[in-house]
């Protein structure tokens, strides 16, 4: 784990971060943490990853291009940090059985096959390579090209992983047709439950 002093040592070659850079970091913290939780499944690990990412980002502020997507830049740092730790520590860095996000959902009603709690359990079962691209493109708002750069893979690989991930999710959730999405739009029900019905 880097320390603040390590960070300042690494900053020898760059100028001090600008105010807009610092504001950008603050604005991206919630998404960065959400991505970290989605990757690791553990809140404590996720917060360590975010802290490490902030330190590295600060140390390398000079290498950030203001005209680029800061979210994609930060996600790249966090992802590399995650996989580096994973190589060092093995699967203990990722706990999909006790995944933190599953504890967030306590939907009161079922409206068809897709339920947010079920969805999170299914999402956690996906291979990490599929889950990360699904989160990057489907949830965090990155383009295919940006997701490919974050994961250091080809755009075509991103698309094929997303396609396989969707198929796997549908399979895990037992969805074979729209009729199993419930009356009306089950996805709308999921969103409503997520926004209004979950404890903090």
């Amino acid at each position: 784990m880097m320390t603040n002093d390590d960070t300042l040592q690494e900053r020898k070659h760059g100028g001090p971060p600008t105010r807009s850079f610092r504001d950008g970091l603050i604005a991206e913290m919630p998404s960065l943490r959400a991505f970290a939780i989605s990757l690791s499944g553990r809140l404590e690990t996720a917060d360590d990853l975010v802290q490490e990412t902030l330190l590295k980002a600060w140390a390398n502020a000079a290498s950030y291009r203001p005209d680029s997507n800061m979210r994609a830049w930060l996600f790249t740092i966090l992802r590399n940090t995650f996989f580096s730790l994973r190589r060092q520590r093995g699967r203990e860095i990722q706990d999909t059985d006790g995944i933190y996000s599953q504890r967030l959902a306590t939907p009161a009603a079922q409206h068809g096959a897709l339920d947010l709690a079920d969805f999170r359990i299914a999402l956690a079962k996906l291979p990490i390579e599929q889950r990360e691209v699904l989160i990057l493109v489907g949830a965090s708002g990155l383009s295919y090209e940006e997701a490919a750069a974050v994961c250091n893979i080809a755009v075509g690989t991103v698309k094929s992983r997303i396609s396989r991930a969707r198929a796997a999710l549908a399979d895990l959730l037992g969805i074979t047709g729209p009729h199993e999405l419930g009356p009306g739009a089950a996805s709308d029900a999921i969103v409503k439950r997520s926004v209004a019905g979950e404890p903090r």
Partner: protein
Amino acid sequence: MESGSGGEQPDDDDDDQECDYANDGPHARDRHRPAKATPPLHKEYQINDAIGKALQAHFRALAEEPLPDRFKVLLAELEAKDPHDDK
């Protein structure tokens, strides 16, 4: 339950209950056409749409969790040791 007469029913949210098209201009009938006249979405599209919305709901819920104070403290320490350009 469908009435059996073609399956077209007014949208419940349509607040214009009186369909007096003659007073609404030449394209009034198109505007009043019930939503169910739209061709059904492809099965795969609907599944992907539901998964997409669930993904966004999942991510949004995580992002809305309160941030721990340690991040604010960390940034304050970094700024104190390495003040940013005031640009």
